């Protein structure tokens, strides 16, 4: 018999605050991929009245549970185990632990946008990427899910194995933003 201790990605990483922005890890939650079969509607089987399968680029949140679009006919269910009986409608795959969650927030929407604009090619202006919007994109060279979950900033998911690289990339950006600001207006 063995006893195994779980370790989350970025375990023990303390939040980093620079240039008015805070980078932190997102407390791990269960992540399930739901991949819709042709013509299926998982809505009723989800068991939450406000929850429906999101359209491309969309996320749907009901209380603590979110369904975020992550690809063609695919969404990630966060914060809840998939109810039984769903598998006739969707292919269910456990993705918990496969993704490291990062959060970049502070100084309203624009601050985090300014940082991410160094790494993410998408138009993240609030107008183009409003609240609830989600995208599969690249964080420099890293495959990432970018989600404007709330007003304060962005939630990112990156492959677990690359969590430290992603952290490093963002930390470097924050350092540079801070350096740009320090002594701005001085010679």
């Amino acid at each position, binding site marked *: 018999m*063995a*006893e195994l201790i779980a*370790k989350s990605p970025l375990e023990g990483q303390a939040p980093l605050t620079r240039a008015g922005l805070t980078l932190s890890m997102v407390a791990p939650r269960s992540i399930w991929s739901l*991949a819709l079969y042709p013509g299926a509607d998982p809505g009723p089987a989800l068991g939450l009245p406000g929850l429906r399968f999101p359209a491309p680029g969309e996320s749907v949140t009901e209380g603590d549970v979110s369904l975020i679009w992550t690809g063609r006919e695919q969404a990630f269910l966060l914060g809840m185990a998939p109810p039984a009986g769903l598998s006739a409608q969707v*292919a269910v*795959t456990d993705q918990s632990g496969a993704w490291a969650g990062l959060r970049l927030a502070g100084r309203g929407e624009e601050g985090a946008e300014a940082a991410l604009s*160094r790494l993410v090619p998408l138009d993240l202006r609030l107008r183009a990427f409003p609240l609830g919007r989600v995208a599969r994109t690249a964080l*420099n060279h890293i495959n990432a899910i970018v989600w404007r979950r709330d007003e304060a900033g962005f939630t990112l998911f990156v*492959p677990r194995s690359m969590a430290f*690289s992603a952290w490093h990339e963002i930390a470097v950006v924050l350092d540079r933003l801070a350096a740009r600001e320090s002594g701005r207006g001085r010679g």
Partner: protein
Amino acid sequence: MRIEGKGIIDRTREVKFRFDGRDYSGFRGDTLASALLANGVRLMGRSFKYHRPRGVLSAGSEEPNALVEVLGKTIRTPNTRATMQEIFEGLDTRSQNRIGSLRHDLLAVNDLFSRFLSAGFYYKTFMWPRHFWEGLYEPLIRRAAGLGSLAQVHDEGVYEKAWAHCDLLVIGAGPAGLMAALVAARSGADVILAEEQPILGGRLIGDGGVIGAEPAALWLAGVEAELRAHPNVRIMTRTTVTGAYDNGTYGALERVGLHRSPRPSLPRECFWRIVAGRTVLASGAHERHIAFPMNDRPGIMLASAVRTYLNRFGVAPGKRVTLFAANDQARQTARDLMAAGVQVAAIIDPRQDVSVVEDCPVHSGAEVIDTKGRHALRAITVRKGAEVFDIETDCLAVSGGWNPALHLTCHMNSRPRWSDELAAFVPVADAVPGLEAVGAANGDFSTHAALLGGKAAAGAALLALGHKVAPVALPAAEDAPYTHRAIWAVAGEGRAWLDLANDVTLKDVQQSARENFASVEHMKRYTTQGMAPDQGKNSNVAALAVLADATGRGIAETGTTTFRPPYVPVSIAAMGAGGRGKGFAPERFMTSDQASRDRLAPMIEAGLWYRPAYFPKPGETTWREACDREVLMVRNAVGVCDVSTLGKIDVQGPDAGRFLDLVYANTISTLAPGKVRYGLMLREDGLVMDDGTAARLGQDHYLLTTTTAAAGQVMRHLDFVHQAFCADWKVRVISVTEGFAQFAVAGPKARALIDTMLDAPLGDLPFMGVVQTAIGGVQARLFRISFSGEEGYEIAVPVDYGEALFRDLLARAETMGGGPYGVEALNVLRIEKGFLTHAELDGRASADDLGLGAMVSTKKDCIGRAASRRPGLHGPAREQLVGLKAMAEISAGAHLFRPADAVERVNDQGHVTSVCWSPVLDLWLGLGFLQNGRARYGEKIRLVDHLRGIDVECEVTHPVFFDPDGGRMRG
């Protein structure tokens, strides 16, 4: 010389800097050029070819002469335009392209031989003996002619890259750009206003004037304040838009830290990619020089630059200035100078019938035909009809008219239109989709026309974007017609420079035409005109005009060379920002990473992953010792290896089996639940893409493994096949590589080790079986598969538990005489068994080459099947996988020859893909491809590796060396 009360520099902030080892001081807001001029320094550089003394010509990014090196702690930045480098405390600069001091440059000797150094000189002269070119002539010429020098160390400066998005991009913050930005700002659109200079205003700064009822400076301050107050406006100063690309994308270079004392993490430059819904190009115009004899001395400047130095920096570039111009606008320079108390010696106007009413002598119908002064201008010679006379002057302000800065409109292959009226090229409409040129950039030279154009273009752009256009009143402004006569060159003795940056003279262009390099593109390459860092901004149009004249054609007919990005020089470091060091590629770490490093395992890269190569024990001095030990450990006891890097793909749905039959060469759908099958995937062209295993976890649920190297490729392939060929099938595919940590446990004691781990007894798990189990309550998947040839298991747990399981497995293995093994041992184990990796699956091998031809099912179709049956992809003519045994060291990459043949390319029989020392068989083993290899077992073959000096006779064998019947792994 500084003029009291003039300029917008901050005279309360003195700034100390160095040039050529001497300390100077200027004020905050100065450029290096303005501060040097204020200190009376007019000699700032040496010319490219003749090493002529040169001073500053312009006040902008088009500067051809005043190029300097900026000295940092380790790096130095050559070819910095003194007109763009703002001074800061401690700035250290020096002149470039000289031997000796700037005043006494030894290479100035070139100038004495200038009559021999005309266009085409090198090509005609340095022809014999031929081999002298590379060894002698070229290095000498490169030493003598050139620009700044590099520090010969890596540029470790910080650079940045970024994206920006907006509705309207306004390029240039002169009156036209400001008006466009104002309209868009009030209309609520997202605006980016990109301005090359540190301050807004464009020509308003240098020229002043009145807008509405107030001085231009006040109007400018009001507009700037309003723009800065709009949250939807982003003002990017020190930012030059360098290129126009598809879909409204623009490149832009921001000087972030170049004007500040260096500090850690502060980027030097940022390379922006701006994506705009619409764009207004308000980049202004470049004033033209005139090619009169000896027109290159320090002190000869563009008239507009003289105004800029006076009005922006409060500097008079001379004590006694002369103006040589063929347009009315340039006379403003003389008037401003006189109003500031600077003496104007004369105005020389080549036009006959012009006003001579100024507060200084005006010579109409006159031209400058010579100049004097070695390190700075002293006097000029003027010809007026038959009369020739000298004028003592230390600064000659020249204006040959204006060229719209339309370069960006040509970046998508559009050609500008020649305007006889303006004697200049002007942009054509829709040259770049979504971009409209306005103001001087469009050939509209009055302030009124600029304001009007900016307003109209912004309005049209906003309407096109679906915005309402807010009302903005058009202020009244100067609307004088552009009164000018085109003057390109002045006949006379002595050289007249067209391209100051590359030392191309009037005669060079005329000679080019004479030697029949008469096309503008040929002339450019023959003379190098327009090929310097200024990319011909100061000389293209004049050179064209001279070429047109020399070839008897019109300018429109002669055409123009192509303007390509970048508009100004862009450092490669800025474009490659983020790519240094680890920015080049992310690092992927397994959950066992720290545990392996704790055991001092050297990590090697496998794609982006880091995997332990081997686990050294005390006393082991080479990797081979550790590797041999680990191999024997697996063969005799038990070894544990993290194989989480292998691709894992989850396939579900009622059509999953059908889908896998389509993508795998062999049949997968017949697999029973709880069973694993080796699978081979082909590319569409019939060659092998990857191999791996497919496990059937349930009726409609499969789990595939891929090689580490091809995990991404296979996932992409499955996505493609699904979307392109069977999108309506009920099958869904997702990577679970990151979700599970998976460990190989292999060796005679593997089962015993596994048994101690599981919550329930293992029971009977036959070879190629898979079972769901649990470890300490954690769900786990146990596969009975082997990549080592031993009884082998792979155990997968949710990735969060990976590190704990690895450490636990190692601890238990060690009590059984086992332990961890790295990829070196893994490689030896698999070579002994003849198992494949991407050394063999190199993209050129067919299934038949690998001896796996029978795996391509004949009972069903699959991707690549049809192509794999082409005659050229199988049979004895091809190189087939074989084993090689040798008594001496052999190498991968070596080639195979018949012992009787000469070792020559035509006799090549094949090559070696993998080798190892087998501690089990006491032999060197290799895998390789040999022509008709399967028919040649037992033959002797000569293995030659010229690179490593290896020449060994080998025996050709079956590729499985160890336990060919597989009894050990089947158990």
